[in-house]
């Protein structure tokens, strides 16, 4: 629980990873290109004091993760959202066994979401059922730009994806996290387009669709569909670190999200280890819309910050919030 100015903030970090991008796990040049791209994001948006050496960034392990999130990072609960990236890394990018072991070692602190890829068709469906039972899945993370053989992407409204979503419904996997990437089939179209999320959200109204990095780089398309689909949510991964380098831009992002989606459908995510949660939580609690922008965007309230930092994701995942971290009646009103 993070405490500031007499207020308690229950923190759920809704998007963390335990990855291994060391050279021995890289399958080819793309494994290096991918982690280098992440590292540039990290270097570009982090305050200087929070920068990691490249070697640490390649692999940090469970102990460091626990420290960065729960000892230093103010986090009460974190959710693994692994990307497989099997075409780039030998044992995958997200380390399933290590992350799941950590989840079992620290019950109540971590939730393990797994990933699926509808292009594995029947075999993948069987695997999804096994994974749901083994991991007790409440959510899945889908990276639509995953490369597989000669295919470099899929969409949420593909017939096979629908079969997987039907299985999710049946297995009690309610929370579908979507991470759009740069490739898609066919390449004629914009890979970041979220029209397929719109369709899936309309057809699966009992599932939650959390669009990671709130649709960036297509914030506007995301806001537009989220306005129309009450089961579409925004994950703040990648968006929230702008709070440091470009606070005015961050004010615009959060202002737009609050306008189009409202305060109940936005979730905090550090995207660890892209960034560490400590400074993000502290900066967000302190954040104010710059005075000359308050004509456009109302100031954030404490209750809104509490919801975004943890209460929204806790509600979605059924995570129990201690009494002191809940909203008081007056704050709700």
């Amino acid at each position, binding site marked *: 629980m993070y405490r500031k100015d007499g207020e308690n903030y229950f923190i759920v970090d809704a998007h963390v990873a335990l990855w291994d991008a060391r050279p021995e796990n890289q399958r080819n*040049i*793309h494994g290096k*290109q*991918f982690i*280098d*791209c992440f590292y*540039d*994001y990290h*270097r*570009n948006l982090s305050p200087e004091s929070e920068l990691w050496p490249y070697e640490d960034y390649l692999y940090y392990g469970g102990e460091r993760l626990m420290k960065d999130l729960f000892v230093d990072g103010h986090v009460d609960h974190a959710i693994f959202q692994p990307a497989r990236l099997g075409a780039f890394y030998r044992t995958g990018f997200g380390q399933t066994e290590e992350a799941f072991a950590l989840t079992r070692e620290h019950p109540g602190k971590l939730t393990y979401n797994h990933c699926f890829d509808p292009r594995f068709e029947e075999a993948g469906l069987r695997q999804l059922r096994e994974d749901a039972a083994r991991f007790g899945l409440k959510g899945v993370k889908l990276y639509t730009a995953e490369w597989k053989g*000669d295919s*470099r992407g899929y969409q949420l409204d593909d017939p096979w994806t629908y079969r997987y979503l039907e299985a999710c419904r049946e297995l009690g996997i309610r929370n579908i996290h979507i991470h759009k*990437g*740069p*490739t898609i*089939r*066919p*390449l*004629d*179209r*914009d*890979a*970041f387009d979220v029209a397929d999320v719109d369709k899936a959200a309309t057809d699966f109204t009992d599932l939650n669709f959390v669009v990671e990095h709130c649709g*960036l*780089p*297509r*914030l*506007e398309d995301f*806001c*537009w569909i989220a306005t129309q689909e009450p089961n579409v949510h925004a994950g703040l991964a990648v968006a929230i670190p*702008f709070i440091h*380098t*470009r*606070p*005015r*831009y961050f004010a*615009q*992002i959060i202002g*737009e999200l609050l*306008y*189009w989606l409202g305060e109940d459908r936005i979730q905090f995510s550090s995207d660890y280890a892209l960034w560490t949660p400590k400074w993000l939580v502290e900066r967000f609690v302190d954040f104010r819309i710059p005075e*000359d*922008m308050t004509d*456009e965007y109302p100031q954030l309230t404490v209750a809104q910050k509490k919801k975004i930092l943890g209460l929204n994701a806790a509600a979605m995942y059924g995570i129990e919030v201690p009494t002191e971290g809940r909203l008081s009646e007056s704050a709700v009103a």
Partner: protein
Amino acid sequence: MWAAQLGAAARAALDTVYDPELDEPITDLGFVRSLTADDGRITVHLRLPTSFCSPNFAYLMASDAKDALSALPGAREVTVLLDDHHDSDLINRGLAADAGYRGTFGHEAERDLEELRDVFRRKAHTAAMERALTALLRARPGLAEERLGDVVLGDLPNTAATRALLRRRAALGLGTAPTDPALVDDEGRPVPPGEIPLRLRFARSVRISVDGNAHFCRGLLRTRYPDSAADQAPRSCDGQNPVAAAEDGPASEEKTTRTRNAGQIV
């Protein structure tokens, strides 16, 4: 043609090549890593903010660059190379063979990239329209948002924002006559009064998105290639925004006074 003349012409040709997503010339963005022109042979290296920038946009910019350079009278042989991208080999092979989009991407390409271009021309227009109309609302406090439907292009002041809007309209095939309504949808149709506030609000989110991406891409390019800072020009429409996004790090002020040198021009 003299090498220096051809180099200058090549540079000017590259100024006409736009990143469709960011609605800016690739030269201003610092995407031109080097340019050499000698005895009719032009060689250009392009660089992007990450190796995982969308390959369809990467291909568009590289092939547009090749087309623009090949059209120069003094150009005998044009080589455009995309550096350090996950599809560099594929794209560079396709460019060298003039294989076109489908020839380059094979089964991943269905038809062409025209629809993709169109989507981003529409976004560029929407953002430019929002800049111009929000500026007008600021300048005329008595003007209600709902009345923007009565505003025609001739009512807009002769500013950079208005000129930018006219260019975007022309690119999209929309009317540019002084009597044409300023607030229109993607097809050039006027917006019913009741829908104006929402439409303007959505246009604002488009503008924020495009501007935000442009700043992030510039920053990432500088992180990846520190020497690219000298080649970047400030985003020209920043000054047109009602709440200026002037926070692109300490480098932005320096850049306005610095002379750009787009790679080495030989």
